[in-house]
């Protein structure tokens, strides 16, 4: 829990899509109406520790944080959310997705996952899922990733399915392997401002008329372009990638 009202998306969270659709909570028999949707969007409670832990904290001699503002005394005067004066805490239910799909550079044969570069929310999203599908550039022997287990992000048992799909992240970037295809994104952005016919033609050529990912990469993208995107050692991306607007 966070002793700040920061995780709201909106400061008073009035919009509840699932609630409006009647998908929250339990049926009469006690089962969840939808076992993937939590009973509430969130909950407010009075902070049982009265703002303890807010940084900068009232250490004797001051705190070493960079933040300087601390209006906890003002917050303590407010009775918003719960009707009681004092610091409030917001509680958020855990996510329980049925399926998570992530991409990693390397996955071991036993399912151990190692991600390189930015991983954002990927490890957390992966662990909470019922089924985890991991796409990767390369399946490697388990010993390769088990030689330095502290560098791994997910243990073997978490992975349900491994999909080996080199260049499968194209046209996005996969750190240390290849960069995003700048030209693709620019042209795709422009495409979406064109006529319906042109958009339809594009989708026909790129998706309908390609047999599979390999056919798409081979015929539409081409090996030359794929190799132009290979990451520059020491950068993780293609340092000299041209990015014209």
């Amino acid at each position, binding site marked *: 829990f966070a002793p700040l009202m*920061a995780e709201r998306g909106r400061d*008073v969270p009035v919009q509840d899509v699932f609630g409006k659709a009647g998908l929250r909570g339990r049926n009469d028999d006690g089962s969840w109406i939808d076992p993937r949707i939590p009973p509430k969007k969130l909950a407010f409670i009075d902070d049982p520790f009265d703002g303890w832990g807010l940084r*900068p904290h009232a250490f004797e001699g001051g705190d070493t944080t960079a933040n300087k*503002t601390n209006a906890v005394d003002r917050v303590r005067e407010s009775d918003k959310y719960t009707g009681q004066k004092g610091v409030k805490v917001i509680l958020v239910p855990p996510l329980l997705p049925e399926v998570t799909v992530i991409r990693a550079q390397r996955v071991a044969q036993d399912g151990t996952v190692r991600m390189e570069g930015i991983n954002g929310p990927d490890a957390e999203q992966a662990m909470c899922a019922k089924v985890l599908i991991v796409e990767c550039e390369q399946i490697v022997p388990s010993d390769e990733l088990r030689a330095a287990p502290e560098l791994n992000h997910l243990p073997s048992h978490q992975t349900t399915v491994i999909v080996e799909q080199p260049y499968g992240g194209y046209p996005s970037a996969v750190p240390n392997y290849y960069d995003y295809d700048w030209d693709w994104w620019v042209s795709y952005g422009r495409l979406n401002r064109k006529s319906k016919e042109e958009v339809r033609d594009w989708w026909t050529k790129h998706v309908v008329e390609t047999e599979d990912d390999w056919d798409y990469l081979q015929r539409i993208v081409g090996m030359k372009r794929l190799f132009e995107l290979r990451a520059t050692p020491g950068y993780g991306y293609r340092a000299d990638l041209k990015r014209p*607007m």
Partner: protein
Amino acid sequence: MEQISDEAYDAYLKERGLTRTQYTSMELLAVAAAREVPDGAFVFAGTGLPLLASMLAQFTVAPHMTLIMEAGIVGPRVEHLPISVSDPRGCLHSSMVSNMADTFGTTAMRGYCTVGMLGGAECDMYGNLNSTIIGGYWPGGVSDTGHGPQVRFAGSGGANNIASFADKILVTMVQEARRFPERVEYLTSVAGARGPREKGESRWDYGLVRGGEMVMISDLCIMRSNHETGLLELDCVFPGVSVADVVNNTGWKLDTSRSKEFTPPTEEELKAVRMLVDPSRIYLGRKSKREAAAQQK
């Protein structure tokens, strides 16, 4: 900066049709925002103009600042301008790359989020930002009006969290009266005071323990939040802009009594933003709607 020769800069200027002293709207916004970054700050920046301005600050007024991106990046030494928070360019030579949960839950909560750099589609008199929707929240199928929003934007992303955690919030926007209403239609991020304290509508009343200092850097002017009233007030107008221009493009009765002059971008600042931050002019090459409209006339 020393490593960039006059020859290289002159060639760049010639190729792009620029001069050493004239500047575009984007360049002005970047320079004005960068100047607001205190040295030593921990700057949470989104991509686009916020990132551009933070990088410029690092090369000019705030060499000891730490850039933080919500994907988990702390303190990178960027060489190539990232175009999104997941661009691998963003983590080059950073001190740590952790994850999104730790960036807000640990780095920011712990006390290392002093400046937030944000954008928005609407900003109101109390510094509330809307980056979610215009014209009703619900899609047509379930809305009471029978139609969906006119525009749906990308949403908060990390903006709400950054606005909640930071001591000081810098916002860059293109200024038009309809984008600067008295009250935002949808409150995505509480960047400023939120509302009047005497009515129990301030950010502190709603539980935010930090912040309240907001600086709006539009393409016309700079506004600052008044610490007493919480309202955004005119701080200075940009060269070539009149106070009346600003008032006409603001949807509330703007206090202009403390308006000052703005020091135009220096040659050094322009050289840095052009040669060190965005040499490909990925963002600098963009024209604001105002510029585009002016060009068409």
